[in-house]
């Protein structure tokens, strides 16, 4: 065939492609193996969480946030709770803060384990997937022990946490955390020096620090480029100002550095959990002025109107905090990046507007920048390295 007759080819990658981590659809304009243009299409997993929460009370909106980033539902819950607490001026007891920190780090490990599992699987290493899932199972079991659910935990509560942890759980967790760095070494034995892995990741998907900031990247994806930014350090929430940890940084901003960052985060998370268990204070786990789950004012009142439109916050005059805040933004460090909740409150028990600043949404936007000029195989590696979850992206 003569070269004049060749043309660019449009191909669809996804939404059913197994390596796009969910239902991400990428339209690739390719010339041979090289990608000329890449357009991500999102919205296949849109469930209207933000709109839905306008019709639910603050307490009821909490289980919805589980379904954002379902790999680390605990952190989503914590983020939402912190936003509502900021809105209503509730201060959380110390013990609850430590439990939340501990649980958040467990969720971070969980999420990163799925990331390393799927990322390695996409690039071609099957064994890591199996080993990572083995360790994740242990963590999910620990979640089940305390919260009663493995994935969608709904554990934190506005003003504290839902139920107390027992000694059995703490012992098991301590044992796990002590063993965990060895497990991380196992993964590293398998892929860290592997020549296939290095060829696929080193120097691929490079993004410089300045560009990364301009694209709005956060979390390990940003830190891989060597930018020191971590909400846990800069705007400490919960008990992060009471524990010691380092923020691992990359240098080149390629896929390998992002991978390295997350691998180091495993160890830091384990370190934080260990400190939390050691420092865990005694005391209450729910603030006195926390919202109550119980609903209508008198239990046997049977007025339909009352049941459906009753304001569900008891013992607290809403005007009090309305005068202080009307809108609030609180962000936390999710495994994927900065997860923010923006809540506008009118004088009802339901959020007037809730908006989620989802890291996956921002990160999906940077895909064209990373993929253009690369090869088709690198698209998969890039998707893996920015670690997106489409449940959070589409909300």
């Amino acid at each position: 065939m003569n070269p004049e007759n060749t043309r660019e080819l449009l191909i669809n990658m996804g939404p059913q492609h197994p390596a796009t981590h969910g239902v991400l659809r990428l339209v690739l304009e390719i010339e041979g193996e090289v990608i000329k243009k890449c357009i991500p299409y999102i919205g296949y997993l849109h469930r209207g969480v933000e709109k839905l929460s306008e019709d639910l009370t603050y307490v009821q909106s909490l289980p919805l946030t589980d379904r954002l980033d379902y790999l680390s539902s605990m952190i989503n819950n914590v983020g939402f709770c912190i936003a509502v607490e900021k809105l209503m001026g509730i201060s959380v007891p110390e013990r609850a803060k430590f439990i939340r920190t501990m649980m958040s780090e467990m969720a971070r490990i969980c999420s990163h384990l799925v990331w390393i599992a799927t990322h390695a699987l996409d690039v071609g290493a099957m064994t890591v997937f199996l080993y990572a899932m083995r360790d994740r199972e242990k963590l999910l079991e620990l979640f089940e022990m305390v919260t009663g659910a493995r994935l969608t935990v709904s554990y934190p509560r506005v003003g504290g946490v839902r139920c107390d942890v027992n000694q059995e759980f703490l012992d098991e967790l301590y044992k796990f955390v002590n063993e965990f760095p060895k497990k991380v070494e196992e993964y590293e034995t398998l892929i860290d020096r592997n020549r296939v892995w290095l060829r696929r990741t080193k120097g691929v998907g490079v993004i410089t620090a300045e560009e990364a900031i301009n694209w709005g990247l956060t979390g390990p994806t940003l830190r891989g480029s060597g930018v020191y930014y971590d909400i846990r350090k800069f705007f400490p929430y919960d008990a992060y100002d009471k524990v010691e940890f380092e923020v691992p940084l990359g240098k080149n901003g390629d896929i390998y550095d992002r991978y390295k960052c997350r691998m180091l985060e495993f160890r830091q998370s384990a370190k934080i959990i260990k400190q939390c268990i050691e420092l865990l204070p005694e005391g209450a786990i729910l603030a006195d002025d926390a919202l109550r789950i119980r609903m209508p004012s008198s239990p046997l009142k049977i007025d339909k109107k009352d049941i459906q439109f009753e304001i569900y916050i008891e013992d607290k005059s809403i005007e009090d905090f309305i005068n202080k805040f009307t809108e609030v933004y609180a962000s936390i460090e999710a495994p994927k990046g900065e997860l923010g909740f923006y809540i506008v409150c009118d004088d009802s028990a339901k959020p007037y507007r809730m908006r989620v600043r989802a890291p996956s949404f921002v990160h999906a936007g940077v895909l064209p920048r990373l993929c253009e000029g690369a090869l088709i195989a690198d698209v998969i590696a890039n998707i893996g390295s920015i670690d997106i979850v489409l449940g959070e992206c589409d909300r």
Partner: protein
Amino acid sequence: MRFVEVIKKILLIEIIKGLWLTLRMLFSKPVTIQYPLERRKVHDGFRGKHALVRDPINGNDKCIGCMRCTTVCPSRCIHIKRAKTENKMVVTDYIIDASRCIYCAYCVEACPVCALVLTEDYEYSFYKRENLIFNKDQLLKNWDEFVKKWQKDYYFNKFWQPPGIDPSRWPKTKREQGPIPLKRGLEIERERVDESNSR
């Protein structure tokens, strides 16, 4: 240094290390279980199949129709039908649409009389959606089925009284709720009552 690197590359050191790890794993204890034949232990307080608690004394459900579960439910899957007979409110039907339920257990926590429970039973699947809409009879049947599987003499759900929460936040009936006697436990209770009566 360079020479060493070349040797390492030729001898596939890093790959052999990885393979050695996987070979070692061959002799370690497997972490998988043969599911239908063996089952993993479910922790207490697991949020599974819905059930209405059968009152050990009168054999009926305990629901008083206060509608708290209906109000608190985020997915609005609980429907309670009530009727007024002789100036008394009677719960005629209690429907949970399990296909809509998100298993948050808010209803269990909100219930003032501990009438509702998400049991530790997680194996229930049907060919038809209609079967997932549990009415009152089905919910009581779920409880009986669960009780058959339950090994211990007493049952107490964690979310009736979440540990660590100040009891003054709960209504009186909830505060005083003790473990529910089942089978053998019921007999023990009866014996105790008989003994105290004979004395």
